[in-house]
């Protein structure tokens, strides 16, 4: 087995890109570093109630007493000997940090102090933030911060990042820390270190590497915790009881099914309500209100566009670009395909409502702490396709947008796992924008068609996973995760996180959608697609049973999947072609943003492998669908 990067990494340091920070937040996963970071800098970050939300660092600035500090929020790590990609990034950041805030969980002091000890052994200038002290008090845990500070030899400040308690005191104690001089190598001259902190880095020499003597650390932590912490009897809280019930084999499984069904229904309910004012989950809505993005476009925006259309003379190059083609003398937001019609309607009216509803539900699941429990329940199924349960978290994120999904695979430990999970996300996990358009377009034919598409993608996901499991080598680590307690999501944090994600969508989607509409219109004018359609017809028409012009939406899918689905609308596909088209489009090349991230995360070799898997899979699935659907639907 390859030995992990140990404490002594001087030779590696030269090769690394250095990121120097004035203040670095270091701590184990899920102690609330990101919430604390937002409190210090005012920079919004995505924080959730499960380990591994932050996979790369976030940078921000904090001003205090006429000084500006560069503050970095590092991913969580259990130890300075990292186990996964995101923890490795944290360890690199620690090497180059001037001051450290070591965030520890006051409710589990004994588990968090070993990392503190490792940091102390590295002679870091640091403050310990005893976070979640409100929760600790509530659970009957009392910690003598003064005594702890004495024992550790560094300041200890009780904080509760969620409510803002202790933040001021933390900043003050940071300010009073000694400023480390550059390239100071004389370790004993660091103030803030008491001589009674033993040097743990001595000397457990193991195959030439210097390791910390772990047993001594655990022993010392045990002593300290015994001295500073006292436990008081407390009753079982409701959240604890709920926590135990939801991991019960029977009740827990039922609960998982219930939560998933409820989540999907809620996403659909809220999404459809925001689009058309309709209230209903399957099929025709039970009630329709004059409300929603579609209403806004049809009733308010369309009359304006019609005036513009008349002004432009209803045809010509500029009309084609801005308004597009008139369908039966009228603007059709799905089919006209101009920058101001489909170019705005698709991202703002058809997709945005689903982005809002998806992230609202996802944020609730994230912040309540249910996601890791779901991961545990799905571990069995996931293990059979060569993944462990935790891979469900990147996959669920992928249902919102493939880009953060692929990035979140960093929380997985082995390269093989990252490869399988990222490949599966990019092929068989449709993003919210794509789903919204599929529901919008195919939903007219009845809910079963939409459910069929989801089912096909799920089966594809399962089969590719199984095949990859048996064809790619590598070690499959077992599940080992801490299940965080249930917490009631904070409204403020929820809104802030939603806002960030929605803004992110608008910033990334709007320009690309408009560019896609523009480029496609130009290419149509140049008749470039006609040659291409003849060239790809053997696959598209003979194997997939689609009209040869469908190559255009498939290619546009490389830019944006939502726009591509919209382009199926004018092709007048039958239900069979529509289903095949949507499945093929979901699988055929990830959108450009996902493509870039996939190659960055996996490297060239594995990225190409992933693409090869995709091309084989899409050809086979498209063909299988075409011929089997011909048997069912005449």
């Amino acid at each position, binding site marked *: 087995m390859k030995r992990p990067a140990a404490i002594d990494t001087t030779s590696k340091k030269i090769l690394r890109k250095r990121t120097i920070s004035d203040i670095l937040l270091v701590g184990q996963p899920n102690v609330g570093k990101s919430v604390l970071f937002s409190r210090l800098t005012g920079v919004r970050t995505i924080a959730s109630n499960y380990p591994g939300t932050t996979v790369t660092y976030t940078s921000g600035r904090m001003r205090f007493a006429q000084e500006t500090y560069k503050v970095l929020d590092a991913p969580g790590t259990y130890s300075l000997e990292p186990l996964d990609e995101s923890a490795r990034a944290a360890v690199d950041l620690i090497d180059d940090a001037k001051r450290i805030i070591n965030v520890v969980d006051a409710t589990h002091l004994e588990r968090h102090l070993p990392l503190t000890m490792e940091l102390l052994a590295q002679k870091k200038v640091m403050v310990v933030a005893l976070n979640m002290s409100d929760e600790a008090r509530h659970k009957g845990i009392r910690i003598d911060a003064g005594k702890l500070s004495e024992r550790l030899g560094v300041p200890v400040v009780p904080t509760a990042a969620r409510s803002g308690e202790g933040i001021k005191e933390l900043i003050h104690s940071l300010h009073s820390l000694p400023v480390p001089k550059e390239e100071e190598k004389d370790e004993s001259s660091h103030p803030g270190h008491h001589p009674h902190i033993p040097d743990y880095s001595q000397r457990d020499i193991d195959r030439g590497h210097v390791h910390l003597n772990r047993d001594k650390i655990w022993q010392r932590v045990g002593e300290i915790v015994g001295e500073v912490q006292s436990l008081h009897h407390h009753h079982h809280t409701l959240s604890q009881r709920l*926590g135990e019930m939801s991991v019960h084999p029977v009740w827990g499984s039922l609960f998982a099914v219930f939560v998933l069904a409820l989540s999907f229904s809620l996403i659909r309910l809220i999404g459809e309500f925001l689009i058309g004012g309709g209230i209903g989950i399957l099929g025709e809505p039970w009630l329709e209100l004059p409300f929603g993005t579609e209403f806004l476009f049809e009733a308010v925006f369309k009359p304006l566009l019609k005036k513009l259309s008349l002004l432009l003379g209803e045809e010509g190059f500029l009309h084609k670009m801005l308004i597009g083609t008139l369908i039966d003398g009228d603007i059709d937001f799905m089919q006209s395909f101009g920058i101001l019609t489909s170019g705005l309607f698709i991202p703002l009216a058809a997709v945005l409502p689903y982005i809002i509803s998806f992230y609202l539900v996802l944020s609730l699941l994230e912040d309540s702490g249910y996601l890791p429990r779901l991961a545990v329940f799905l571990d069995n199924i996931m293990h059979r396709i060569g993944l462990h349960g935790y891979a469900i978290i990147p996959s669920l994120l992928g249902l919102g947008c493939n880009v953060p999904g692929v990035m979140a695979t960093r929380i997985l430990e082995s390269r093989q796992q990252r490869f399988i999970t990222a490949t599966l996300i990019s092929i068989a996990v449709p993003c919210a924008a794509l789903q919204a358009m599929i529901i919008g377009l195919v939903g007219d034919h009845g809910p079963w068609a939409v459910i069929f598409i989801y089912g096909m993608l799920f089966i594809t996901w399962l089969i590719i996973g199984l095949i990859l499991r048996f064809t790619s080598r590598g070690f499959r680590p077992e599940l080992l995760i801490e299940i965080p307690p249930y917490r009631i999501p904070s409204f403020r944090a929820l809104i802030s996180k939603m806002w960030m994600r929605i803004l992110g969508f608008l910033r990334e989607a709007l320009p690309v959608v408009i560019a896609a509409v523009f480029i496609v219109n130009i290419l149509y004018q140049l008749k470039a697609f006609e040659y291409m359609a003849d060239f790809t017809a053997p696959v598209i028409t003979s194997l997939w049973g689609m009209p040869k012009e469908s190559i255009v939406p498939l290619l546009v899918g490389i830019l944006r999947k939502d726009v591509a689905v919209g382009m199926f609308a004018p092709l007048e596909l039958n239900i069979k072609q529509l289903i095949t088209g949507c499945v093929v489009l979901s699988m055929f090349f990830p959108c450009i943003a996902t493509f870039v991230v996939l190659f960055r995360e996996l490297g060239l070799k594995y990225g190409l492998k992933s693409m090869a898997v995709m091309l084989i899979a899409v050809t086979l699935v498209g063909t299988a669908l075409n011929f089997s659907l011909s048997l069912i639907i005449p």
Partner: protein
Amino acid sequence: MEKLLTELKPGETGKIIALRGGRRMQERLRSLGMMEGNHIRKLSNLVWSGPVIVLVDRAQVAIGFGMARRIIVLTNGNNKT
């Protein structure tokens, strides 16, 4: 009575007395509270050799089946036979 963690019944409690496996494996288990001397309560085990869920140090931890077999627990059960 000494048992593997996987052999405990849901609801049964005990004290961890030993960890098997390599140094890194042991470190990972310890950093989540699976320390020699700690009290542990098994909450649940999932079907088909799924993960074992325990309560240790007032926190829930899910452990893969293979890993759970490396944790040796002394149950304070009255072993009558």
